[in-house]
């Protein structure tokens, strides 16, 4: 494959945002963008809404039912014990426990889902679009003051697109334009 991807590196988010807008207009696929902080403009341009909140909602609802069932089982069915003359089915108590356990379990499930989806876990190797595209270089600065936009990704860009992409990047004020080299 002789097609190559391009990386554009900016120093401000708004410049990159403009570039992305123009790239999009030209139907040049933007693989990924890397920013040192959550640049909301770019996120709006590139991202899909995360479905994590829906997962949380589902997890929370499930947990409420499970915890209630569990409490009912231990308190009423399995080993009913009289505490202070209270009925076995002590609903006010259940509410508090369900409340606490729902938060606990939902949060754990959500974090696990996040990790599963993003593939982030302690000890994971750096995973940026350059690496993903097979380039072994590490282009630093994205955690400092550099904004990177990767075009073409693993497939690379066709010559024509490559050309116009470089132009757009340059015009948008990119500090550097690099080619992704596959090893």
């Amino acid at each position, binding site marked *: 494959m002789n097609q190559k991807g391009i990386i554009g590196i900016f120093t*401000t988010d*708004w*410049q990159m945002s*403009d570039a992305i807008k123009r790239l999009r207009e030209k139907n040049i696929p933007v693989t*990924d*963008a*890397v*920013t*040192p*902080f*959550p*640049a909301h403009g770019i*996120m709006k341009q*590139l*991202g*899909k*809404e*995360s479905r*994590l*909140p829906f997962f*949380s909602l589902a997890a929370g609802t499930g947990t409420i039912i499970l915890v209630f069932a*569990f*409490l009912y089982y*231990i*308190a009423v069915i*399995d*080993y009913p014990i009289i505490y202070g003359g*209270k009925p076995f089915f*002590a609903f006010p*108590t259940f509410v*508090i*426990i369900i*409340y*606490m*356990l729902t*938060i*606990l379990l*939902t*949060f754990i499930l*959500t*974090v696990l889902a*996040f990790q599963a*989806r*993003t593939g*982030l876990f*302690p000890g*994971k190797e*750096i*995973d*940026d*679009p350059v690496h993903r595209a097979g380039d072994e270089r590490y282009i*630093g*600065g*994205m*955690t*400092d*003051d550099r904004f990177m936009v990767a075009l073409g990704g693993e497939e690379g860009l066709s010559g024509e697109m490559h050309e116009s992409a470089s132009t757009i990047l340059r*015009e*948008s*004020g990119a500090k550097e334009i690099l080619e992704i080299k596959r090893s």
Partner: protein
Amino acid sequence: MDTTSAGAPLIEGKMSYRQVTDTLSGTVERKPAKWWYAGMTLSTLAVLFGLWAMYTTVTVGLGTWGLNNSTAWGWDIINFVWWIGIGHAGTAFTIFLIVFRAKWAAAINRTAEAMTVFAVMCAGLFPLIHLGRLWLVFFIAPYPNTRGPLWVGYNSPLFWDVLAITTYLLLSVTLWYFGMIPDLATMRDRAKTKLSRTIYGFFSMGWIGSVRNWMRYEALTKILAGLAAPLVVSVHTIVSLNFAVSVIPGWHTTILPPYFFVGAIFSGFAMVLTIMILIRKAFPLTSFITMGHLNSISRVLIFGSMVIGLAYATELFIAWYSGVEYEMFTFFKSRATGRYATTFWIMVVCNAIIPQLLWFRKIRHSIGWLLAISIIINIGMWYERYVILISSLAQDFLPSSWVTFTPTIVDIGIYVGTFGIFFTGMLLFIRAIPMIAIFEVKDLAGEKREDHKPDEDKTEKT
């Protein structure tokens, strides 16, 4: 430009992203000052003292404490509630930041969260160490067993408490840690030695800041903060249920949950104020932690103080209005005028009266006054818990079982030990992790489109 509610700027002066990164990670990268070593030595000594006290407690028995047949809870639960209260600020700031998008909280958030984590750890220590048979602590967990199976006492507020504290600790640790990941990545990229690069690299989870991850990351932190929001209210509420659900006069009141919650926020913010002033003094971060921040916190404190004062008054009123003689005795004879009058009035003065000084602009803008008041508030809050616990237990229904409570060296040792743990944790934190969330501040800093000089602008404005 974002400002605090007080109107002061969040970041004083203009900074580039690089400057922000340099300044904020500088606290970690520079060699620590002498005060840091002194602080570490002191807090390590305190930890050692605490360890000795805990060892004594576990091996010899709870008899080494000042407890007795009537006051079966003493300094353990006082300190537990106190620390939990302090541990409320961090999460509150997180909520301000993430849920209410109050950007000004970004400068304080991480430190406040660290404080929360260490304070909750210190707090969580007490319910453990106060067990007569620590080695059987797993009985509290509802797990299937061959004893019938015998489950747990789900009616007990202590069980709810265990759930609440566990949840709160796990959630605040998670929030804190996930909040740090982008900065850990920054530190990884700036690391000069292989070791620190490996360590930061390990914990940064390979973070690079890709937009997709940022999206999910923001979603996650929002969900976590959303889950934490009710926790901030409920944790101290559940702690207060330990008292409110009981029958003891002075405990058995419905006002306790809101009263405890506000008290917790109050003491937590006071502690944040203390720590922030100290950090501001120790590091060149005045442009990040501005007078505006301190001013905002002071205003929260005034509000808290007034609510607390109202709660004190309400308690007294309700005791009188109910006409229950046990309540009357506890509030009027035991607390206001009797054996616990000194502690009661220390509590009132420290929590309800002195913070009113913050109404004065001069005092609000004097670092010295703020530091003093913030410390006084936490002393007052400790006394509040002392009054609630000891006065109610030591003089309850039957005068025959009235006792006096005197702490022992072991009681004091464990308390000092938790200070050690807290400050060791905080000192290590400021050495290892940027105190202020770099990525959050960057959102506020750097060259904005509107700052850009038009002649250099090569792109079209949208």
